[in-house]
Protein backbone atom coordinates (compact mmCIF):
# COMPACT_ATOMS: atom_id res chain seq x y z
CA UNK A 1 0.00 0.00 0.00
CA UNK A 2 1.30 3.44 -0.76
CA UNK A 3 2.61 5.76 1.87
CA UNK A 4 0.80 8.88 2.95
CA UNK A 5 2.49 12.09 1.81
CA UNK A 6 3.90 14.20 4.57
CA UNK A 7 1.38 16.80 5.54
CA UNK A 8 2.17 20.46 6.04
CA UNK A 9 1.14 21.99 9.35
CA UNK A 10 -2.10 23.49 8.06
CA UNK A 11 -3.12 20.45 6.17
CA UNK A 12 -2.91 18.22 9.19
CA UNK A 13 -6.10 19.93 10.23
CA UNK A 14 -8.14 18.67 7.29
CA UNK A 15 -9.96 15.36 7.33
CA UNK A 16 -7.70 12.72 5.94
CA UNK A 17 -8.45 12.04 2.33
CA UNK A 18 -6.03 9.17 1.96
CA UNK A 19 -6.62 6.21 4.18
CA UNK A 20 -4.60 3.04 4.68
CA UNK A 21 -7.41 0.50 4.83
CA UNK A 22 -5.21 -2.58 5.09
CA UNK A 23 -3.34 -1.19 8.03
CA UNK A 24 -6.51 -0.39 9.90
CA UNK A 25 -7.89 -3.83 9.20
CA UNK A 26 -4.81 -5.66 10.38
CA UNK A 27 -4.26 -3.29 13.31
CA UNK A 28 -0.51 -3.28 13.01
CA UNK A 29 0.27 0.11 11.61
CA UNK A 30 0.08 2.02 14.89
CA UNK A 31 2.37 -0.34 16.74
CA UNK A 32 4.86 -0.78 13.91
CA UNK A 33 5.01 2.95 13.58
CA UNK A 34 5.55 3.37 17.30
CA UNK A 35 8.21 0.64 17.45
CA UNK A 36 10.04 2.31 14.59
CA UNK A 37 9.94 5.65 16.35
CA UNK A 38 11.04 4.09 19.60
CA UNK A 39 13.98 2.36 18.00
CA UNK A 40 15.20 5.65 16.61
CA UNK A 41 15.16 7.24 20.06
CA UNK A 42 18.65 6.40 21.21
CA UNK A 43 18.09 7.53 24.75
CA UNK A 44 15.06 5.32 25.19
CA UNK A 45 16.88 2.40 23.65
CA UNK A 46 19.86 2.86 25.92
CA UNK A 47 17.50 3.03 28.88
CA UNK A 48 15.97 -0.23 27.79
CA UNK A 49 19.34 -1.93 27.86
CA UNK A 50 20.21 -0.43 31.21
CA UNK A 51 16.98 -1.78 32.64
CA UNK A 52 17.70 -5.14 31.14
CA UNK A 53 21.08 -5.12 32.80
CA UNK A 54 19.52 -4.16 36.12
CA UNK A 55 17.03 -6.98 35.87
CA UNK A 56 19.73 -9.53 35.20
CA UNK A 57 22.03 -8.06 37.80
CA UNK A 58 19.45 -8.06 40.54
CA UNK A 59 17.51 -11.21 39.86
CA UNK A 60 20.19 -13.51 38.56
CA UNK A 61 23.30 -11.96 40.01
CA UNK A 62 22.89 -13.25 43.57
CA UNK A 63 23.10 -16.84 42.36
CA UNK A 64 26.65 -16.15 41.31
CA UNK A 65 27.76 -14.53 44.48
CA UNK A 66 29.71 -16.51 47.06
CA UNK A 67 28.05 -14.49 49.77
CA UNK A 68 24.61 -14.40 51.26
CA UNK A 69 22.88 -11.06 51.75
CA UNK A 70 22.53 -11.52 55.46
CA UNK A 71 25.59 -13.44 56.54
CA UNK A 72 27.63 -11.18 58.72
CA UNK A 73 31.37 -11.22 59.10
CA UNK A 74 32.37 -9.12 62.03
CA UNK A 75 36.03 -9.40 61.15
CA UNK A 76 35.68 -7.41 57.97
CA UNK A 77 33.25 -4.65 58.67
CA UNK A 78 33.20 -1.41 56.71
CA UNK A 79 35.72 -2.49 54.11
CA UNK A 80 36.36 -0.27 51.14
CA UNK A 81 35.83 -1.77 47.69
CA UNK A 82 38.43 -4.47 47.07
CA UNK A 83 38.84 -7.70 45.21
CA UNK A 84 37.12 -9.86 47.77
CA UNK A 85 34.26 -7.39 48.13
CA UNK A 86 33.93 -5.31 44.98
CA UNK A 87 31.45 -2.99 46.62
CA UNK A 88 32.88 -3.15 50.10
CA UNK A 89 31.13 -4.32 53.24
CA UNK A 90 28.72 -2.69 55.61
CA UNK A 91 28.86 -2.21 59.33
CA UNK A 92 28.07 -5.84 60.01
CA UNK A 93 30.54 -7.17 57.50
CA UNK A 94 27.93 -8.15 54.95
CA UNK A 95 29.04 -8.07 51.33
CA UNK A 96 27.67 -4.94 49.70
CA UNK A 97 27.67 -6.31 46.18
CA UNK A 98 25.29 -9.06 47.12
CA UNK A 99 23.20 -6.72 49.18
CA UNK A 100 22.91 -4.24 46.33
CA UNK A 101 21.77 -7.05 44.07
CA UNK A 102 19.25 -8.37 46.53
CA UNK A 103 18.19 -4.86 47.43
CA UNK A 104 17.53 -4.32 43.77
CA UNK A 105 15.30 -7.36 43.72
CA UNK A 106 13.25 -5.88 46.50
CA UNK A 107 13.08 -2.36 45.11
CA UNK A 108 12.33 -3.47 41.58
CA UNK A 109 9.94 -6.11 42.81
CA UNK A 110 8.01 -3.65 44.92
CA UNK A 111 8.04 -1.27 41.98
CA UNK A 112 6.58 -3.76 39.57
CA UNK A 113 4.07 -5.36 41.87
CA UNK A 114 2.79 -2.15 43.40
CA UNK A 115 2.52 -0.63 39.93
CA UNK A 116 0.53 -3.64 38.80
CA UNK A 117 -1.79 -3.23 41.77
CA UNK A 118 -2.32 0.44 41.05
CA UNK A 119 -2.74 -0.37 37.38
CA UNK A 120 -5.48 -2.90 38.00
CA UNK A 121 -7.36 -0.55 40.29
CA UNK A 122 -6.77 2.54 38.21
CA UNK A 123 -7.64 1.07 34.83
CA UNK A 124 -10.86 -0.55 35.98
CA UNK A 125 -11.91 2.54 37.86
CA UNK A 126 -11.09 4.96 35.07
CA UNK A 127 -12.50 2.82 32.28
CA UNK A 128 -15.71 2.21 34.16
CA UNK A 129 -16.17 5.87 34.93
CA UNK A 130 -15.63 6.85 31.31
CA UNK A 131 -17.71 4.04 29.90
CA UNK A 132 -20.71 4.61 32.13
CA UNK A 133 -20.39 8.35 31.84
CA UNK A 134 -22.85 10.88 33.15
CA UNK A 135 -23.43 11.38 36.83
CA UNK A 136 -21.62 8.22 37.85
CA UNK A 137 -18.54 9.40 36.02
CA UNK A 138 -18.76 12.83 37.61
CA UNK A 139 -19.08 11.36 41.10
CA UNK A 140 -16.28 8.89 40.63
CA UNK A 141 -13.93 11.56 39.42
CA UNK A 142 -14.94 13.87 42.23
CA UNK A 143 -13.81 11.19 44.63
CA UNK A 144 -10.52 10.99 42.79
CA UNK A 145 -10.12 14.75 42.99
CA UNK A 146 -10.71 14.75 46.72
CA UNK A 147 -8.36 11.83 47.28
CA UNK A 148 -5.73 13.56 45.17
CA UNK A 149 -5.75 16.46 47.57
CA UNK A 150 -5.04 14.30 50.57
CA UNK A 151 -1.56 14.24 52.00
CA UNK A 152 -0.89 10.65 51.16
CA UNK A 153 2.62 10.24 52.41
CA UNK A 154 1.30 11.15 55.81
CA UNK A 155 -1.27 8.39 55.73
CA UNK A 156 1.25 5.97 54.36
CA UNK A 157 3.58 6.69 57.22
CA UNK A 158 0.76 6.36 59.69
CA UNK A 159 -0.34 3.07 58.26
CA UNK A 160 3.12 1.67 58.21
CA UNK A 161 3.80 2.66 61.80
CA UNK A 162 0.51 1.45 63.08
CA UNK A 163 0.14 -1.92 61.52
CA UNK A 164 2.51 -4.77 61.34
CA UNK A 165 5.13 -4.06 58.79
CA UNK A 166 4.52 -6.72 56.24
CA UNK A 167 5.57 -6.49 52.68
CA UNK A 168 2.00 -7.11 51.56
CA UNK A 169 0.89 -4.03 53.42
CA UNK A 170 3.64 -2.13 51.67
CA UNK A 171 2.36 -3.17 48.27
CA UNK A 172 -1.22 -2.35 49.13
CA UNK A 173 -0.41 1.00 50.60
CA UNK A 174 1.79 2.11 47.74
CA UNK A 175 -0.61 0.80 45.14
CA UNK A 176 -3.42 2.63 46.88
CA UNK A 177 -1.57 5.90 46.45
CA UNK A 178 -0.62 5.59 42.82
CA UNK A 179 -3.84 4.38 41.25
CA UNK A 180 -5.33 7.85 41.16
CA UNK A 181 -3.18 9.13 38.32
CA UNK A 182 -3.72 5.99 36.29
CA UNK A 183 -7.48 6.25 36.78
CA UNK A 184 -7.49 9.83 35.54
CA UNK A 185 -5.36 9.04 32.52
CA UNK A 186 -7.38 6.00 31.50
CA UNK A 187 -10.64 7.82 31.92
CA UNK A 188 -9.38 10.68 29.81
CA UNK A 189 -8.25 8.35 27.11
CA UNK A 190 -11.45 6.32 26.99
CA UNK A 191 -13.54 9.49 26.96
CA UNK A 192 -11.63 10.96 24.07
CA UNK A 193 -11.84 7.67 22.23
CA UNK A 194 -15.57 7.58 22.72
CA UNK A 195 -15.81 10.93 21.01
CA UNK A 196 -13.48 10.10 18.18
CA UNK A 197 -14.94 9.79 14.78
CA UNK A 198 -13.37 6.49 14.00
CA UNK A 199 -15.57 4.84 16.57
CA UNK A 200 -18.64 6.25 14.86
CA UNK A 201 -17.16 5.23 11.53
CA UNK A 202 -16.64 1.70 12.74
CA UNK A 203 -20.18 1.57 14.04
CA UNK A 204 -21.54 2.86 10.78
CA UNK A 205 -19.50 0.29 8.90
CA UNK A 206 -21.37 -2.31 10.85
CA UNK A 207 -18.60 -3.50 13.13
CA UNK A 208 -19.82 -5.31 16.20
CA UNK A 209 -19.34 -3.68 19.58
CA UNK A 210 -16.92 -6.41 20.56
CA UNK A 211 -14.80 -5.77 17.52
CA UNK A 212 -14.77 -2.07 18.22
CA UNK A 213 -13.64 -2.62 21.77
CA UNK A 214 -10.92 -5.09 20.97
CA UNK A 215 -9.69 -3.73 17.69
CA UNK A 216 -9.95 -0.03 18.30
CA UNK A 217 -10.46 1.00 21.88
CA UNK A 218 -8.20 -1.38 23.75
CA UNK A 219 -5.09 -0.90 21.60
CA UNK A 220 -5.38 2.85 22.07
CA UNK A 221 -5.90 2.62 25.80
CA UNK A 222 -3.14 0.04 26.11
CA UNK A 223 -0.67 2.51 24.75
CA UNK A 224 -1.42 5.09 27.39
CA UNK A 225 -1.46 2.46 30.12
CA UNK A 226 1.97 1.17 29.13
CA UNK A 227 3.41 4.65 29.16
CA UNK A 228 2.08 5.58 32.56
CA UNK A 229 2.85 2.22 34.06
CA UNK A 230 6.46 2.74 33.02
CA UNK A 231 6.37 6.16 34.63
CA UNK A 232 4.65 4.93 37.77
CA UNK A 233 7.32 2.40 38.64
CA UNK A 234 9.90 5.06 39.48
CA UNK A 235 7.34 6.89 41.64
CA UNK A 236 6.64 3.73 43.51
CA UNK A 237 10.30 2.98 43.95
CA UNK A 238 10.87 6.45 45.31
CA UNK A 239 8.05 6.00 47.78
CA UNK A 240 9.35 2.63 48.89
CA UNK A 241 12.87 3.90 49.35
CA UNK A 242 11.53 6.91 51.22
CA UNK A 243 9.73 4.61 53.62
CA UNK A 244 12.77 2.41 53.97
CA UNK A 245 14.86 5.44 54.73
CA UNK A 246 12.54 6.29 57.58
CA UNK A 247 12.71 2.73 58.75
CA UNK A 248 9.19 1.90 57.68
CA UNK A 249 9.82 -0.16 54.61
CA UNK A 250 11.27 -3.62 54.37
CA UNK A 251 12.73 -4.71 57.63
CA UNK A 252 16.34 -5.71 58.17
CA UNK A 253 18.12 -7.92 57.40
CA UNK A 254 16.30 -7.79 54.06
CA UNK A 255 17.87 -4.93 52.15
CA UNK A 256 16.27 -2.58 49.72
CA UNK A 257 18.04 0.19 47.89
CA UNK A 258 16.32 2.66 50.20
CA UNK A 259 17.60 1.08 53.38
CA UNK A 260 21.06 0.67 51.88
CA UNK A 261 21.07 4.35 51.08
CA UNK A 262 20.04 5.11 54.65
CA UNK A 263 23.00 3.17 55.94
CA UNK A 264 25.19 5.00 53.49
CA UNK A 265 23.84 8.36 54.57
CA UNK A 266 24.60 7.55 58.18
CA UNK A 267 28.17 6.73 57.33
CA UNK A 268 28.78 9.19 54.61
CA UNK A 269 31.65 11.02 56.15
CA UNK A 270 33.98 8.09 56.39
CA UNK A 271 32.56 5.56 53.97
CA UNK A 272 30.95 7.40 51.10
CA UNK A 273 30.94 4.28 48.94
CA UNK A 274 28.17 2.88 51.08
CA UNK A 275 25.92 5.68 49.91
CA UNK A 276 27.19 6.28 46.42
CA UNK A 277 26.98 2.76 45.05
CA UNK A 278 23.37 1.97 45.93
CA UNK A 279 22.40 5.57 45.07
CA UNK A 280 23.99 5.12 41.66
CA UNK A 281 22.07 1.96 40.95
CA UNK A 282 18.86 3.48 42.22
CA UNK A 283 19.17 6.67 40.23
CA UNK A 284 20.28 4.88 37.09
CA UNK A 285 17.22 2.69 37.25
CA UNK A 286 14.90 5.63 37.82
CA UNK A 287 16.61 7.55 35.05
CA UNK A 288 16.15 4.73 32.61
CA UNK A 289 12.55 4.16 33.55
CA UNK A 290 11.75 7.82 33.08
CA UNK A 291 13.52 8.07 29.74
CA UNK A 292 11.93 4.88 28.54
CA UNK A 293 8.53 6.16 29.61
CA UNK A 294 9.13 9.47 27.84
CA UNK A 295 10.33 7.62 24.77
CA UNK A 296 7.24 5.42 24.77
CA UNK A 297 5.09 8.50 25.10
CA UNK A 298 6.76 10.14 22.12
CA UNK A 299 6.60 6.95 20.10
CA UNK A 300 2.95 6.24 20.70
CA UNK A 301 1.73 9.81 20.52
CA UNK A 302 3.90 12.07 18.38
CA UNK A 303 1.55 14.95 19.01
CA UNK A 304 2.44 14.95 22.68
CA UNK A 305 3.76 18.16 24.08
CA UNK A 306 7.33 16.94 24.51
CA UNK A 307 8.11 17.80 20.90
Amino acid sequence: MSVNPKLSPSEKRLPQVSVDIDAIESGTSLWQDAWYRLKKNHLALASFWVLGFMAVFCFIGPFFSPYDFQSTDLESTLQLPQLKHPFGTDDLGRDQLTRVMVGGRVSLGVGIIATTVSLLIGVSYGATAAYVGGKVDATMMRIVDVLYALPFTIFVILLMTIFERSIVLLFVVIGAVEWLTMARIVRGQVLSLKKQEFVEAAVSLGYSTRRIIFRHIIPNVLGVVVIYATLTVPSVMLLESFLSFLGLGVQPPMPSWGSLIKLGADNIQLYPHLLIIPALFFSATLFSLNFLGDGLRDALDPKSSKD
Partner: protein
Amino acid sequence: MFKFIARRIAQSIVVLFVIVTVTFFMVRLAPGDPFSQERKMPEHIKQSLMAHYGLDKPVMIQYGNYLKNLVQGDLGPSYVETRSVNKILTASFPVSLELGSWALVIALCIGLPVGITAAVFKNSMADYIPMAVAMLGICLPTFVLGPILALVFGVWLGWFNVSGWFIPADRVLPALTIGLVYAAVIARITRGGMLEILSQDFIRTAKAKGVPFPRIIFFHTLKGGLLPVISFLGPALAGIISGSFVVETIFQIPGMGRQFVSSAFNRDYTLVLGTVIIYATLITLANLIVDVIQVVINPRLRFEDS
Protein backbone atom coordinates in the same frame (compact mmCIF):
# COMPACT_ATOMS: atom_id res chain seq x y z
CA MET B 1 -17.21 32.96 40.83
CA PHE B 2 -17.97 33.53 44.47
CA LYS B 3 -20.31 30.62 44.48
CA PHE B 4 -17.37 28.59 43.29
CA ILE B 5 -15.12 29.80 46.08
CA ALA B 6 -17.79 29.27 48.69
CA ARG B 7 -18.36 25.76 47.44
CA ARG B 8 -14.67 24.96 47.51
CA ILE B 9 -14.35 26.27 51.06
CA ALA B 10 -17.23 24.10 52.15
CA GLN B 11 -15.62 21.12 50.44
CA SER B 12 -12.32 21.85 52.12
CA ILE B 13 -13.90 21.86 55.54
CA VAL B 14 -15.53 18.53 54.83
CA VAL B 15 -12.24 17.10 53.63
CA LEU B 16 -10.46 18.34 56.71
CA PHE B 17 -13.09 16.82 58.91
CA VAL B 18 -12.76 13.51 57.14
CA ILE B 19 -9.00 13.57 57.50
CA VAL B 20 -9.15 14.30 61.20
CA THR B 21 -11.69 11.58 61.78
CA VAL B 22 -9.90 8.98 59.73
CA THR B 23 -6.59 9.74 61.38
CA PHE B 24 -8.12 9.72 64.81
CA PHE B 25 -9.60 6.28 64.38
CA MET B 26 -6.63 4.91 62.53
CA VAL B 27 -4.33 5.82 65.33
CA ARG B 28 -6.70 4.71 68.06
CA LEU B 29 -7.51 1.41 66.49
CA ALA B 30 -3.90 0.43 66.20
CA PRO B 31 -2.55 -2.26 68.44
CA GLY B 32 -0.68 -0.96 71.41
CA ASP B 33 -0.91 2.33 73.20
CA PRO B 34 1.42 5.20 74.01
CA PHE B 35 2.69 3.60 77.09
CA SER B 36 3.58 0.16 75.91
CA GLN B 37 6.57 1.31 73.89
CA GLU B 38 8.85 2.44 76.59
CA ARG B 39 9.75 0.63 79.75
CA LYS B 40 7.71 -2.17 81.12
CA MET B 41 5.14 -0.48 83.26
CA PRO B 42 3.26 -1.98 86.16
CA GLU B 43 -0.34 -2.48 85.23
CA HIS B 44 -1.89 -0.25 87.84
CA ILE B 45 0.31 2.70 86.92
CA LYS B 46 -0.62 2.26 83.31
CA GLN B 47 -4.29 2.20 84.26
CA SER B 48 -4.10 5.43 86.15
CA LEU B 49 -2.13 7.05 83.34
CA MET B 50 -4.77 5.99 80.88
CA ALA B 51 -7.48 7.34 83.12
CA HIS B 52 -5.61 10.58 83.56
CA TYR B 53 -5.52 11.11 79.83
CA GLY B 54 -9.03 9.88 79.35
CA LEU B 55 -7.83 6.90 77.36
CA ASP B 56 -9.97 4.43 79.24
CA LYS B 57 -13.20 5.89 78.01
CA PRO B 58 -14.96 4.43 74.94
CA VAL B 59 -13.50 5.51 71.66
CA MET B 60 -16.49 7.50 70.52
CA ILE B 61 -16.46 9.57 73.68
CA GLN B 62 -12.80 10.24 73.25
CA TYR B 63 -13.55 11.34 69.71
CA GLY B 64 -16.25 13.67 70.85
CA ASN B 65 -14.01 15.18 73.46
CA TYR B 66 -11.25 15.65 71.02
CA LEU B 67 -13.46 17.47 68.58
CA LYS B 68 -14.80 19.66 71.31
CA ASN B 69 -11.32 20.65 72.30
CA LEU B 70 -10.23 21.02 68.74
CA VAL B 71 -12.86 23.57 67.94
CA GLN B 72 -11.60 25.60 70.84
CA GLY B 73 -8.09 25.37 69.51
CA ASP B 74 -6.78 22.96 72.07
CA LEU B 75 -4.88 20.08 70.60
CA GLY B 76 -4.51 18.24 73.85
CA PRO B 77 -1.55 17.01 75.85
CA SER B 78 1.29 15.02 74.45
CA TYR B 79 1.54 11.54 75.84
CA VAL B 80 5.23 11.20 75.47
CA GLU B 81 6.46 14.66 76.23
CA THR B 82 5.47 16.85 79.08
CA ARG B 83 4.40 19.91 77.15
CA SER B 84 1.02 20.22 75.53
CA VAL B 85 0.72 19.62 71.84
CA ASN B 86 -0.07 23.26 71.23
CA LYS B 87 3.17 24.31 72.83
CA ILE B 88 5.19 21.73 70.96
CA LEU B 89 3.81 22.69 67.61
CA THR B 90 4.10 26.39 68.20
CA ALA B 91 7.82 25.83 68.48
CA SER B 92 8.31 23.47 65.59
CA PHE B 93 5.80 24.67 63.04
CA PRO B 94 7.55 27.96 62.23
CA VAL B 95 10.75 26.05 61.61
CA SER B 96 9.18 23.75 59.08
CA LEU B 97 7.27 26.62 57.57
CA GLU B 98 10.48 28.49 56.98
CA LEU B 99 12.18 25.45 55.52
CA GLY B 100 9.28 24.76 53.20
CA SER B 101 9.03 28.37 52.10
CA TRP B 102 12.68 28.58 51.18
CA ALA B 103 12.43 25.32 49.32
CA LEU B 104 9.45 26.58 47.35
CA VAL B 105 11.16 29.87 46.55
CA ILE B 106 14.24 28.04 45.29
CA ALA B 107 12.12 25.65 43.28
CA LEU B 108 10.19 28.43 41.55
CA CYS B 109 13.10 30.79 41.03
CA ILE B 110 15.15 28.10 39.36
CA GLY B 111 12.47 25.96 37.80
CA LEU B 112 10.35 28.58 36.05
CA PRO B 113 13.08 30.43 34.13
CA VAL B 114 14.79 27.20 33.19
CA GLY B 115 11.56 25.69 31.92
CA ILE B 116 10.57 28.77 29.95
CA THR B 117 14.01 29.07 28.37
CA ALA B 118 14.02 25.39 27.46
CA ALA B 119 10.68 25.77 25.74
CA VAL B 120 11.65 28.91 23.87
CA PHE B 121 14.93 27.43 22.67
CA LYS B 122 13.51 24.01 22.07
CA ASN B 123 15.85 21.30 20.86
CA SER B 124 18.95 23.38 21.39
CA MET B 125 21.61 23.08 24.04
CA ALA B 126 19.66 25.45 26.24
CA ASP B 127 16.97 22.80 26.18
CA TYR B 128 18.81 19.48 26.31
CA ILE B 129 21.28 20.25 29.05
CA PRO B 130 18.88 21.73 31.61
CA MET B 131 16.33 19.01 30.91
CA ALA B 132 18.91 16.29 31.39
CA VAL B 133 20.00 17.86 34.65
CA ALA B 134 16.37 18.19 35.63
CA MET B 135 15.83 14.51 35.00
CA LEU B 136 18.75 13.84 37.29
CA GLY B 137 17.14 15.96 39.94
CA ILE B 138 13.96 13.97 39.72
CA CYS B 139 15.77 10.68 40.01
CA LEU B 140 17.85 11.72 42.98
CA PRO B 141 15.72 11.43 46.06
CA THR B 142 16.11 14.02 48.81
CA PHE B 143 17.70 11.48 51.08
CA VAL B 144 20.46 10.94 48.56
CA LEU B 145 20.96 14.55 47.63
CA GLY B 146 20.93 15.74 51.22
CA PRO B 147 23.81 13.66 52.53
CA ILE B 148 25.80 14.34 49.38
CA LEU B 149 25.33 18.08 49.71
CA ALA B 150 26.20 17.81 53.38
CA LEU B 151 29.32 15.89 52.54
CA VAL B 152 30.54 18.16 49.79
CA PHE B 153 29.61 21.56 51.12
CA GLY B 154 29.61 20.80 54.80
CA VAL B 155 32.46 18.45 55.37
CA TRP B 156 34.83 18.78 52.46
CA LEU B 157 34.42 22.47 51.74
CA GLY B 158 33.37 23.41 55.22
CA TRP B 159 31.09 26.17 54.05
CA PHE B 160 28.06 25.14 56.05
CA ASN B 161 27.14 23.27 59.19
CA VAL B 162 25.76 19.86 58.57
CA SER B 163 23.18 20.01 61.27
CA GLY B 164 21.22 22.44 63.35
CA TRP B 165 19.04 25.39 62.65
CA PHE B 166 20.79 28.20 64.41
CA ILE B 167 22.38 30.66 62.04
CA PRO B 168 20.82 31.82 58.77
CA ALA B 169 23.38 29.83 56.79
CA ASP B 170 21.95 26.66 58.28
CA ARG B 171 18.91 27.16 56.06
CA VAL B 172 20.86 26.78 52.86
CA LEU B 173 21.65 23.09 52.54
CA PRO B 174 18.31 21.73 53.74
CA ALA B 175 16.33 24.18 51.60
CA LEU B 176 18.49 23.37 48.59
CA THR B 177 18.02 19.65 49.09
CA ILE B 178 14.27 19.91 48.76
CA GLY B 179 14.24 22.94 46.50
CA LEU B 180 16.49 21.55 43.81
CA VAL B 181 14.42 18.42 43.37
CA TYR B 182 11.26 20.44 42.94
CA ALA B 183 13.03 22.94 40.70
CA ALA B 184 13.71 20.01 38.40
CA VAL B 185 10.09 18.93 38.37
CA ILE B 186 8.83 22.47 37.88
CA ALA B 187 11.27 23.04 35.04
CA ARG B 188 9.97 20.02 33.20
CA ILE B 189 6.35 20.87 33.77
CA THR B 190 6.86 24.47 32.74
CA ARG B 191 8.61 23.42 29.57
CA GLY B 192 5.79 21.03 28.77
CA GLY B 193 3.10 23.57 29.45
CA MET B 194 4.79 26.27 27.39
CA LEU B 195 5.35 23.91 24.48
CA GLU B 196 1.76 22.78 24.63
CA ILE B 197 0.56 26.35 24.26
CA LEU B 198 3.15 27.24 21.64
CA SER B 199 1.88 24.48 19.41
CA GLN B 200 -1.66 25.84 19.49
CA ASP B 201 -3.32 27.57 16.57
CA PHE B 202 -3.83 30.85 18.32
CA ILE B 203 -0.10 31.36 18.58
CA ARG B 204 0.01 31.10 14.82
CA THR B 205 -2.72 33.71 14.65
CA ALA B 206 -0.69 36.01 16.86
CA LYS B 207 2.29 35.55 14.61
CA ALA B 208 0.16 36.26 11.57
CA LYS B 209 -0.93 39.50 13.21
CA GLY B 210 2.67 40.61 13.31
CA VAL B 211 3.17 40.17 17.06
CA PRO B 212 6.90 40.01 17.84
CA PHE B 213 8.31 36.92 19.49
CA PRO B 214 8.99 38.21 23.02
CA ARG B 215 5.44 39.43 23.31
CA ILE B 216 4.15 36.12 22.03
CA ILE B 217 6.00 34.38 24.80
CA PHE B 218 5.18 36.67 27.67
CA PHE B 219 1.76 37.93 26.75
CA HIS B 220 0.18 35.10 24.83
CA THR B 221 1.88 31.95 26.05
CA LEU B 222 2.79 32.44 29.66
CA LYS B 223 -0.69 32.52 31.11
CA GLY B 224 -1.74 29.22 29.65
CA GLY B 225 1.71 27.72 29.82
CA LEU B 226 1.97 28.18 33.56
CA LEU B 227 -1.35 26.53 34.29
CA PRO B 228 0.16 23.05 34.69
CA VAL B 229 2.72 24.41 37.12
CA ILE B 230 0.06 26.13 39.15
CA SER B 231 -2.03 23.03 39.42
CA PHE B 232 1.11 21.19 40.41
CA LEU B 233 1.71 23.48 43.35
CA GLY B 234 -0.85 21.60 45.44
CA PRO B 235 0.88 18.25 45.15
CA ALA B 236 4.21 20.10 45.30
CA LEU B 237 3.39 21.35 48.74
CA ALA B 238 2.51 17.84 49.84
CA GLY B 239 5.81 16.71 48.41
CA ILE B 240 7.76 19.43 50.15
CA ILE B 241 6.13 18.43 53.41
CA SER B 242 7.13 14.81 52.99
CA GLY B 243 10.56 15.96 51.91
CA SER B 244 10.81 17.79 55.19
CA PHE B 245 10.42 14.51 57.10
CA VAL B 246 13.61 13.29 55.57
CA VAL B 247 15.56 16.52 55.46
CA GLU B 248 14.80 17.42 59.06
CA THR B 249 16.06 13.99 60.05
CA ILE B 250 19.25 14.28 58.06
CA PHE B 251 20.13 17.80 59.12
CA GLN B 252 18.83 17.51 62.67
CA ILE B 253 16.34 20.31 62.29
CA PRO B 254 13.82 20.80 65.11
CA GLY B 255 10.86 20.92 62.84
CA MET B 256 7.40 19.40 62.62
CA GLY B 257 8.41 16.77 60.13
CA ARG B 258 10.81 15.05 62.40
CA GLN B 259 8.28 15.25 65.17
CA PHE B 260 5.57 13.72 63.08
CA VAL B 261 7.66 10.68 62.24
CA SER B 262 8.80 10.10 65.79
CA SER B 263 5.33 10.68 67.23
CA ALA B 264 3.97 8.11 64.81
CA PHE B 265 6.60 5.65 66.00
CA ASN B 266 5.83 6.44 69.62
CA ARG B 267 2.11 6.34 69.19
CA ASP B 268 1.79 9.75 70.70
CA TYR B 269 -1.79 10.09 69.52
CA THR B 270 -2.37 13.71 70.15
CA LEU B 271 0.88 14.89 68.70
CA VAL B 272 0.29 12.81 65.61
CA LEU B 273 -3.18 14.21 65.24
CA GLY B 274 -1.97 17.71 65.85
CA THR B 275 0.65 17.54 63.14
CA VAL B 276 -1.72 15.87 60.72
CA ILE B 277 -4.27 18.60 61.28
CA ILE B 278 -1.79 21.32 60.56
CA TYR B 279 -0.49 19.58 57.45
CA ALA B 280 -3.96 18.85 56.21
CA THR B 281 -5.04 22.43 56.75
CA LEU B 282 -2.01 23.72 54.90
CA ILE B 283 -2.53 21.39 51.97
CA THR B 284 -6.23 22.03 51.74
CA LEU B 285 -5.64 25.75 51.88
CA ALA B 286 -2.99 25.50 49.21
CA ASN B 287 -5.29 23.46 46.96
CA LEU B 288 -8.03 25.99 47.46
CA ILE B 289 -5.80 28.91 46.53
CA VAL B 290 -4.44 27.02 43.54
CA ASP B 291 -7.93 26.23 42.29
CA VAL B 292 -8.99 29.85 42.60
CA ILE B 293 -5.93 31.06 40.72
CA GLN B 294 -6.62 28.55 37.99
CA VAL B 295 -10.13 29.81 37.56
CA VAL B 296 -8.92 33.38 37.41
CA ILE B 297 -6.38 32.62 34.73
CA ASN B 298 -8.41 30.23 32.63
CA PRO B 299 -11.73 31.85 31.77
CA ARG B 300 -13.09 28.62 30.38
CA LEU B 301 -13.22 27.16 33.85
CA ARG B 302 -15.48 29.89 35.11
CA PHE B 303 -18.48 28.46 33.43
CA GLU B 304 -17.85 24.91 34.61
CA ASP B 305 -17.02 23.79 31.11
CA SER B 306 -16.06 20.15 31.14
